[in-house]
């Protein structure tokens, strides 16, 4: 399992697009936003916070969605398409562990990327670290599970690597929109806001923003994430084919 995980990690780093989209792009967005005066003004409609304060949780959720929906599905669906998984079924190891190794690689990348985001935001742009840190971490964990489960569902539903790429993007953009990447959730019209709260991105961002401000995340947001994780995982397991 260690050799397998290290091999998958090496392939992930060698591919370059994974680290670029999962770590580089969110950091780049943070640096761009952080340098815009518009993002650093304290605003009444955000409860006196700056736009950048509210964007850090959004970028954290963006990292998770990027890895789960745009990086993971093409790799796994490509493995299935090329018979990599079929070949592994004839070894004592079996393909389930490749899936597990991929999930570990995604989680490790998420840890590195989120840590980099929080530290750069703190030390380069003066965004305070989440005040309810345990609640923040719990939310990230649940959000990662929910989004990875959706990513596996995308993998299961897509016939091949390219289709997984396309389907992942189709799911990704509405989700990051509803997570507030283009328009913070607080400023959305009521209907859109309710819809947002029902998605894993919206629930995750809301819960992380609560935790940033020192509150324990609302239980409804955490339950929403758990429900997505369980529902998508069960559906993915039923639909998933090794070949």
């Amino acid at each position, binding site marked *: 399992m*260690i*050799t*397998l995980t290290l*091999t998958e990690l*090496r*392939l992930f780093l*060698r*591919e370059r697009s994974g680290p670029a989209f999962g770590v580089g792009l969110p950091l780049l967005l943070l640096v761009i936003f952080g340098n815009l005066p518009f993002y650093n003004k304290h605003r009444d409609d955000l409860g006196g916070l700056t736009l950048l304060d509210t964007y850090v949780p959004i970028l954290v959720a963006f990292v998770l969605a990027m890895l789960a929906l745009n990086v993971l599905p093409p790799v796994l669906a*490509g*493995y299935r398409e*090329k*018979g*990599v998984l*079929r*070949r592994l*079924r*004839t*070894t*004592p*190891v*079996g393909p389930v562990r490749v899936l597990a190794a991929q999930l570990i690689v995604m989680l490790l990348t998420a840890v590195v990327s989120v840590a980099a985001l929080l530290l750069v935001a703190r030390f380069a742009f003066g965004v305070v670290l989440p005040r309810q840190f345990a609640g923040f971490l719990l939310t990230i964990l649940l959000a990662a599970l929910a989004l990875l489960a959706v990513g596996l569902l995308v993998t299961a539903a897509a016939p091949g690597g390219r289709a997984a790429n396309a389907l992942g993007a189709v799911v990704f953009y509405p989700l990051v929109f509803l997570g507030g990447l283009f328009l913070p959730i607080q400023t959305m019209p009521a209907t859109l806001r309710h819809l947002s709260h029902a998605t894993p991105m919206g629930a995750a961002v809301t819960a992380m923003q609560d935790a940033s401000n020192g509150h324990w995340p609302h239980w409804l947001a955490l339950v929403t994430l758990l429900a997505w994780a369980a529902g998508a995982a069960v559906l993915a397991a039923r639909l998933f084919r090794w070949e």
Partner: protein
Amino acid sequence: MGSVIEVEHLHKSYGGTVAVDDVSFTVGQGEIFGILGRNGAGKTTTVECLVGLRRPDRGTVRVLGRDPQRDHAEVTRRVGVQLQDSQLPERLRVGEAMRLYQSFYPEPADSRELLAQLGLAGRERTPYGKLSGGQKQRLSIALALVGRPRIAVLDELTTGLDPHARRDTWDLIAGIRAGGVTIVLVTHFMPEAERLCDRIALIDAGRVLVTGSPGELIARAGQPTLEDAFVSLTGRNA
């Protein structure tokens, strides 16, 4: 007595299509056993049932006395498989693929030695995607053998190899058999079957038409070569 594979009345269909109707054969310890047949005759499905990739609808399959479905872990540990159309990740290097597959088995073979035998010495750092078709094929044979299997199942062993590489591979297979490994060879290529196989099962329309040594098949069909015997026994123009 000394048989390592026993297939009895194997039947498998997909939807309404019968892939394997009724196939029975046994393979003895240390044999090179050929499975021959035209496209769509049911060879691949038979092999997939042998290695546990598919569950038979009817009949029994025993590999080393075990059920490939129920005792999957046990069977996969002792059976090395080369599949016809399974690839590796493009950027995975030859040496990394070997180390990865070594890690799957309790007592793996020496990677360097195996690569040298397959003409891949010095290719350890080459990514899979940069290998030629023949090199990919040889790497997949190396991966089938790296776990020191008791049985090696090889599907289209030398497809895509040039004549020299093909002969080297035949020598390698003969050498591995001499070490006590039983080999199941699925092939279209009659000179290969004639040269390597001790016995052959000729499959047609999901049934075993005839089983015997290449010499017996030739004699039975009254033809000069195995290829002629194959064409005559499978009835139609191949």
